[in-house]
């Protein structure tokens, strides 16, 4: 029977088969599609046979993976053909080509309904099958009553009724409201008395679906289910054709036991007894047989019985029986049974009484960790992870570590995370924990995320007994010829803090420590160099009395990096260099890190959160947690060149940045005399994650923490103004005062597209921008206001990582009274709130003027207004359910404003408020489309719920199809709500890093005085 009965179709399929390569196949397919298309166009000439043939061809082409973007109409129209052959084709092809969300299906509803309520049995079957396979909500609403009627009709034959049962199941899944519980529960119970096994099987599936949602109404089904199970298990009254390899319908048995698992318990003692009898029979009576299919079928039933026993809280004896069975299974050769044995044993861990019995199988489970089948290895890992506790942690973790070196890449990350968590949770002693993590880094450094080594630092810092041991271990690893960069980081950090505790051991003098760490420097990345520099500074500090030789070596390193291209490294080098010249004063500033506050391990949280554990997602989460600090200060926390996502930050990077920002703010406020006591906490208030932990204390511990940074910013002016990325250029700014408030100008430009960005007595920088999609074109107008030329004009763009920016050439000289236009092309790669900075300088006479200006290429420029109707909004809103696509936050400290003003603000940000969508008049619902290269156009929806009684807080929910976008947009809107520039704003609240107002010269020249003032 090799021919399809349609010659044209067979010929086409043969042609395709004869194609030598993909290209030929494509040509043949294109030709056929062209042919079909023309034939469909002049439809009049088509016989039903031809139409049928072409629709089949379309399906075949579609199956091969080609886009078939026409002919859906023809397929759908065949549904209402009067004759069976055409109708059948129409139904089958439509249900293959379209999915439930396809528009054409709406057209089909009527035809389908007509066939369902019609008298023709075969047509009914076709229609029920289509609705059951691809019916959506609309199908559910319009067809459910008719389908229910068919299912319970006594005049319908089983072939129709079993289809009706599954069709109803689908419609119920699409919209549970279509089944009226009150009326249906009795009917459902009646259906379980059905004699026809086909109808009974389908009805049982329906029951499973109903009770999975709500079991309350269906208690009367329980005894019936038990009856069915008894009947099947005893093989009473089961027609021959419904036994499968001698087993009475294993599928019906499985489904019945599944349904029972949705009821919390079986209370009636008689029913319960019968049920346990059946279960006992299944547990004991299932033997391994030769025939694969019989074996599979009987074990399918057995595993379902195990699940039911577990669910029913059987006596301990029966549970132990189950574990014993599973123990047998995990040792058999048959891979399926072994896999399922492991899987079900993991489920069994929930039963407290049997955990000890499971532990007896540990050796066997560890063997499975080395199975050639990754599916089995995964199960074994999961089980080991689940059964680990203090008693066996050492063995299990050591096994995991051993396995790590040979494990496939797909599993290493999960493996190392799990090993790290177990080591932390169940460590019998902390030195063992440190050993484990260091081994982990050594063996699989690439898969050890930053949180894991941060956690080690956390523990070591908090446990003094551990410090010498950890330092010694770190020292030992450094002796290895090639070590992972993460190992360099953690060793350098630990040795910086604690190497002085080792001083008397051989090979641990400050100089030797420095040398061995310094050896690694040429091979590591920027973020690690930053840590190494901190370590050097600490080593210097701990070397008392100072070792001149070492000192000069380290100073040489510092001075080398003072001209490093990376601003962070450069700043550290400059600051540490200057600090270390201070001699004993260094002690106060670089003192040991204080202890971390105790809290739940972020690793465990991470493992709990990220079920699917994509690295990307967890990174976003990490970041979200990290920046979850007080909304009011978020904007002030942005580093000027804030390009790096926080996840990449080196160990001590953030505190310095934020402290620098903050101390600049302190200086400012100090200078203005507005505030003398500044709460040093906000920017780095403890954030709920580990990174925050490690970084936090510098800021929290006010004196120790804030000091180095403030000294540093104090020094900036004196050392090398140009080298500093963060602090404003005080000296020059002193000489040339800007006209107007730069921050205000920036904020104004964030909302409009042209205006003045900067102005001083000599130059005015105007800006005009055009935005479209994810691109923008900004023109900078550099206007010379005076009658002599401005020389050495330089404009440098410091783009954040999410923007691609190209500035055309800027002339060196601007002639007197002339204006120069410099176009700047902007492309938005991904959602981010980071801000681009224009580093602009020129010379007036001999005086160098340098300003760093934020460019208004901000997130809202890549938004385009779109207003959505209720029909469009709600499905979207619902489909984006929960984090990370939908985020909610209560924002406090909102600048109080009337609702209308808030609506205006939203509109001005291109977030178009859609009135009337939210019934509560105190809520605002807004929508917009965001454009970037990575997300393309993406719809974003925002809802803010305000409290008329308290205008300073509101609840905001943001949803979009991209987790980063949702997060960034939420933060962005939050910033707008809490940080709207008002003319009378106190200087403290302004973004300090661009604040042109500078501290009085005395503060700059005398860091000591400044320090004293701060303390």
């Amino acid at each position: 029977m090799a021919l399809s009965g349609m010659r044209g179709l067979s010929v086409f399929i043969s042609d395709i088969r004869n194609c030598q390569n993909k290209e030929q196949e494509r040509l043949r397919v294109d030709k056929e599609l062209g042919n079909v298309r023309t034939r469909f166009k002049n439809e009049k000439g088509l016989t039903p046979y031809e139409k049928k043939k072409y629709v089949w061809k379309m399906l075949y082409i579609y199956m091969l993976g080609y886009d078939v973007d026409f002919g859906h109409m023809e397929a759908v129209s065949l549904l209402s053909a009067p004759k069976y052959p055409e109708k059948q084709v129409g139904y089958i092809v439509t249900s293959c080509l379209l999915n439930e969300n396809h528009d054409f299906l709406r057209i089909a509803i009527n035809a389908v309904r007509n066939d369902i309520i019609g008298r023709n049995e075969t047509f009914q079957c076709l229609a029920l099958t289509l609705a059951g396979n691809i019916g959506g909500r609309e199908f559910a609403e319009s067809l459910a009553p008719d389908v229910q009627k068919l299912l319970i009709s006594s005049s319908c034959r089983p072939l129709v009724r079993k289809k009706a049962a599954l069709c109803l199941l689908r419609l119920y899944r699409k919209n549970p409201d279509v089944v009226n519980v009150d009326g249906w529960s009795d009917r459902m119970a009646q259906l379980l008395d059905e004699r026809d096994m086909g109808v009974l099987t389908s009805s049982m599936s329906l029951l499973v679906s109903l009770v999975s949602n709500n079991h309350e109404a269906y208690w009367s089904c329980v005894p019936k289910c038990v009856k069915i199970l008894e009947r099947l298990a005893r093989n009473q009254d089961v027609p021959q054709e419904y036994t499968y390899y001698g087993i009475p319908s294993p599928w019906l048995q499985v489904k019945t036991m599944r349904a029972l698992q949705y009821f919390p318990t079986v209370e009636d003692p008689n029913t319960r007894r019968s049920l346990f009898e059946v279960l006992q029979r299944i547990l004991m009576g299932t033997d391994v047989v030769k025939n694969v299919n019989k074996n599979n079928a009987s074990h399918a039933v057995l595993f379902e019985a195990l699940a039911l026993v577990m669910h029913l809280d059987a006596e301990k004896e029966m549970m132990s029986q189950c574990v014993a069975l599973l123990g047998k299974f995990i040792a058999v050769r048959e891979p399926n049974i072994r896999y399922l044995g492991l899987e079900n044993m993991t489920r069994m861990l929930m039963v407290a009484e049997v955990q000890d019995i499971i532990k007896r199988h540990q050796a066997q489970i560890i063997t499975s960790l080395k199975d050639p089948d990754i599916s089995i290895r995964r199960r074994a890992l999961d089980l080991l992870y689940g059964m680990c506790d203090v008693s066996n942690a050492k063995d299990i973790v050591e096994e995991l570590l051993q396995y790590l070196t040979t494990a496939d890449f797909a599993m290493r990350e999960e493996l190392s995370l799990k090993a790290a968590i177990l080591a932390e949770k169940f460590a019998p002693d902390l030195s063992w924990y440190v050993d484990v993590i260091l081994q982990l880094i050594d063996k699989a450094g690439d898969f050890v995320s930053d949180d894991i080594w941060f956690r080690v630092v956390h523990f070591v810092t908090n446990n003094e007994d551990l410090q010498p041991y950890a330092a010694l271990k770190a020292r030992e690893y450094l002796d290895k010829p090639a070590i992972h960069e993460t190992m360099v980081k953690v060793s350098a950090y630990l040795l910086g803090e604690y190497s002085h505790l080792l001083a008397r051991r051989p090979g641990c003098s400050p100089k030797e420590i420095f040398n061995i760490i310094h050896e690694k420097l040429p091979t590591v990345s920027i973020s690690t160099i930053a840590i190494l520099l901190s370590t050097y500074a600490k080593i210097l500090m701990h070397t008392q009395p100072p070792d001149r030789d070492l000192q000069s070596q380290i100073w040489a390193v510092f001075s080398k990096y003072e001209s490093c291209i990376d601003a962070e490294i450069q700043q550290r080098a400059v600051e540490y260099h200057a600090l270390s010249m201070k001699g004993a004063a260094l002690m106060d500033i670089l003192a040991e890190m204080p202890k971390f506050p105790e809290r739940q391990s972020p690793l465990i949280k991470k493992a709990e959160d990220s079920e699917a554990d994509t690295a990307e997602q967890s990174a976003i989460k990490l970041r979200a947690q990290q920046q979850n600090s007080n909304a009011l200060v978020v904007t002030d926390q942005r580093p000027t060149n804030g390009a790096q996502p926080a996840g990449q930050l080196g160990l001590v990077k953030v505190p310095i940045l934020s402290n620098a920002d903050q101390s600049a703010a302190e200086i400012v406020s100090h200078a203005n005399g507005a505030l003398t006591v500044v709460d040093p906490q906000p920017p780095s208030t403890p954030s709920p994650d580990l990174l925050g932990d490690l970084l936090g204390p510098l800021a929290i511990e006010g004196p120790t923490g804030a000091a180095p940074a403030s000294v540093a910013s104090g020094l900036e002016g004196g050392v090398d103004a140009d080298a500093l990325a963060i602090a404003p250029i005080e000296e020059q700014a002193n000489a040339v005062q800007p006209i107007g408030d730069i921050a205000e100008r920036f904020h104004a430009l964030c909302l409009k597209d042209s205006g003045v960005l900067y102005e001083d007595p000599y130059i005015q920088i105007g800006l005009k921008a055009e935005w479209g999609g994810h691109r923008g074109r900004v023109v900078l107008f550099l206007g010379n206001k005076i009658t002599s030329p401005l020389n050495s004009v330089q404009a440098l763009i410091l783009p954040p990582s999410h923007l691609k920016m190209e500035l055309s050439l800027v002339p060196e000289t601007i002639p007197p009274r002339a204006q120069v236009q410099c176009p700047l092309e902007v492309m938005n790669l991904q959602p981010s709130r980071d801000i681009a900075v224009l580093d602009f300088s020129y010379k007036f006479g001999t005086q160098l003027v340098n300003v760093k200006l934020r460019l208004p290429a901000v997130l809202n420029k890549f938004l385009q207004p779109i207003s959505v109707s209720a029909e469009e909004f709600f499905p979207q809103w619902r489909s984006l359910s929960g984090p990370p696509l939908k985020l909610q936050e209560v924002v406090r400290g909102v600048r109080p404003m009337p609702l209308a003003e808030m609506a205006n603000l939203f509109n001005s940000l291109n977030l178009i408020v859609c009135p009337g969508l939210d019934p509560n008049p105190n809520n605002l619902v807004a929508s917009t489309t965001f454009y970037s290269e990575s997300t393309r156009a993406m719809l974003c929806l925002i809802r803010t719920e305000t409290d008329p009684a308290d205008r300073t807080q509101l609840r905001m929910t943001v949803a979009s199809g991209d987790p980063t976008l949702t997060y960034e947009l939420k933060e962005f809107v939050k910033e707008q709500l809490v940080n709207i520039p008002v003319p009378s704003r106190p200087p403290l609240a302004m973004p300090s890093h661009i604040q042109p107002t500078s501290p009085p010269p005395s503060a700059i020249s005398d860091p000591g005085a400044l320090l004293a003032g701060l303390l």
Partner: protein
Amino acid sequence: MIHFVLLISRQGKVRLTKWYSPYTQKERTKIIRELSGTILTRAPKLCNFVEWRGFKVVYKRYASLYFCMCVDQDDNELEILEIIHHFVEILDRYFGSVCELDLIFNFHKAYFVLDEILIAGELQESSKKTVARLIAAQDSLVEVAKEQESSISNIIAQATK
């Protein structure tokens, strides 16, 4: 529930697809690509289950064809494995010792059969005999219609002679 059924040849050619959960065309293509990569490369004698994106794919190889069904994580894997076998047995009975070629040239018949076994991703009929009877009835309906048609066109042809 079964989210989709795939029949893929050893060369990675798709022989049948049936989707019970809504996937767009793009997702469908991606799933097929991903799964053929995972499943076709698995060594023989491993277990018949692959964990994939939070779902499980139960598959079994028959000669040159892989039959795959994707189910939820807590579904009963062996039950699904035997649904596959049930399907194969029915195809075998229908075509008389089925081979890949039968399914290529009569792919539409494979769809008819599948529709009698599964609806909404759930097993509809576990009796091979019943399925065979229903398919035979459908075939005869088509045959009858064809005969009628040819007799009508004969009549017309003769009348217009």
